[in-house]
């Protein structure tokens, strides 16, 4: 029982990060139907920015806030310069731009800051070894609890933004029908720009939380997390915010349970693949994900 709970708690903290990055992916995907392959690396670079601000003397929370701001602006510049020119030409070209961004961003910290090894990252949340509550024989660490709470809070704020603000309304309109949205006077270009900026901000929170949990920043830290987040976004349905959160948490828990309980059968080699196989099974039953909108094609 204690072990089951332990895997559940650990899985939820893993899943929180998946969920947050999946949210970022969904925000970019909804208006334009693009999967931003560089979302994870943007989050990694954001974590490095926060580390750098900290190095310059900023306390951790302002450093993270500054990194979130830098990410938003940076992502909007990238959208303007590299994504917009190809958006309506070819979806494959957009994918290649994102892949190129992935490669370039992955190399950025070692070039910019000459970092050759992981660097220390300060803890955002209390993380002394004995900062935990004991529940049913398992321990739930404060930092894991707070990461989960932050994720849920951000998801709630996003839901508010999309339902209650003009920008959110415009984003929903473009997501639902780009042509009609343009006809009623919505500046679709601005919506795309805002989506990239917003997604990068959410991603930056994910990246800095990962760094805080690890205690260090490293250029390889988001690679496997990005794949899991992409899987979660698809599982949730690619255009559903709550789908991304539910699927992210679910994936974290399933992965951890599988690796914990079936080491002989599943093992670490197949751990990330287990999650993907579960998703494959779900998609075969529901081709648009758990909460996705079914496609309606006009012939």
């Amino acid at each position: 029982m204690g072990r089951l709970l332990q895997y559940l708690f650990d899985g939820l903290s893993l899943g929180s990060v998946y969920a947050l990055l999946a949210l970022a992916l969904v925000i970019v995907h909804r208006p334009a139907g693009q999967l931003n392959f560089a979302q994870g690396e943007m989050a990694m670079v954001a974590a490095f920015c926060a580390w750098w601000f900290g190095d310059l003397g900023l306390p951790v929370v302002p450093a993270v806030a500054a990194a979130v701001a830098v990410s938003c602006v940076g992502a909007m510049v990238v959208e303007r310069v590299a994504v917009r020119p190809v958006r309506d030409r070819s979806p494959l070209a957009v994918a290649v731009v994102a892949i190129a961004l992935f490669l370039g961003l992955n190399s950025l910290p070692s070039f910019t800051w000459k970092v050759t090894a992981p660097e220390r990252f300060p803890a955002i949340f209390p993380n002394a070894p004995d900062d935990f509550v004991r529940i049913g024989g398992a321990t739930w660490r404060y930092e894991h609890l707070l990461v989960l709470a932050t994720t849920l809070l951000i998801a709630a704020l996003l839901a508010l933004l999309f339902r209650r603000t003009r920008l959110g309304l415009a984003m929903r309109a473009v997501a639902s029908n780009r042509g009609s949205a343009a006809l009623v006077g919505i500046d679709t270009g601005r919506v795309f720009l805002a989506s990239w900026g917003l997604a990068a901000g959410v991603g930056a929170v994910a990246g800095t939380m990962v760094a805080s949990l690890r205690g260090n920043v490293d250029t390889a830290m988001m690679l496997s997390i990005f794949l899991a987040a992409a899987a979660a976004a698809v599982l949730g349905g690619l255009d559903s915010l709550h789908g991304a959160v539910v699927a992210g948490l679910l994936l974290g828990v399933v992965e951890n349970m599988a690796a914990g309980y079936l080491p002989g059968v599943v093992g670490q080699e197949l751990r990330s693949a287990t999650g993907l196989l579960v998703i494959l099974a779900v998609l075969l039953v529901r081709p648009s994900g758990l909460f996705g909108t079914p496609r309606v094609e006009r012939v």
Partner: protein
Amino acid sequence: MPSVRLVRGSGAHLAVRVIAAAVIAWLLLSPFLRDLTPSDYGWRTDVAVLALAAVALNLLIGFTGQISIGHSAFFGLGAYTTAVLVSDQGWTPGWTFPVAAVLCFASGVVVGIPALRLTGMYLALVTVALAQLFPALVRRFDGLTGGSAGVDGVRYDPPPWTGLDDGRLDRSRWLYLLALVLLGLGWLVARNLVKSRTGRAMVAVRDNATAAAVAGVNVAFVKTVTFGVSAALAGVAGSLFALRQSHVSPDALAFTILGAVVFLVVVAIGGVATLTGPLVGAVVYHRIDEYTRELPRKTYLPEPVATFLDGRANLASLVFAVLLIALVVAAPDGLVGLGRRVGRRFVVVTPPGVPPATAAAPAPSLQPPVIESVTVEPGGAT
């Protein structure tokens, strides 16, 4: 206005095509007449392997509109088939190509069947799972695959009838020749498939599966078979890769998702849904990659720049990323698409008997695919 007008099938048109073919043949075969080193043959072989994998992927993305980010798995399966048969079972490498092709065709069909229900990014993600699974399975079944250590000693010495010896130079020539032949074969398979009735069915499925089905196309059959053929070609490319490397291991990036991404990039920069795109893309990709990796050693850089670059790793990757973005922004439909647009300003080929005024319009046959032609129901957001 275009300055030259050629009528399809006329003598002048034929002459242009013969000259073009001669130029390409010269480019491919002239290395044998020149004094080249093994490394010169080596990179040409690498390009051919990359091109064959891109031809395979293009068949799927370009002509049925199914995005795969998992072709590294078929590539790897082909490579391991050859490696294990040659190194452990002592097979003559030539016989492993058909085995790899059949094995990959079968796995392609197996993957293609569940893929029928999925489109766009949903399908792409499932193929990512495939890419993730392959190296994991290689490590898991280490009895067969050698696990993390990989398989060693996969080599193909030139057979005696070629008149080549087993030295490094002649071995590299033999592999280059082999790669050219297999690339040519693979390209012909793709070309004939695309130009056939099935090819038209593929394009119909890509542009609108429902409409194609209504028109009597067996959508499931077309998609599954294309997946199989594409996987088989990728597998043969993998076989060649194993022979060129002489060693395969799950650490090789070509067998991971990064390999699949490279194939995708090659198809995109060459020109998706064109027959020459993958070939052009492979050459350009490979040369940019080589050039950028040599950058840090360029001695002509001015002193302040060189000092600035001191201690900064990964310069090559950054330059590569910037070049790739610039290339895609300049030619979103790929280099072949760009070439066509530029070429049309100077030369126009018209079918016989068509009046010049209408002939100037671009041929609509092979447009780049619209991958996400999705109409979302209003009210579905949030």
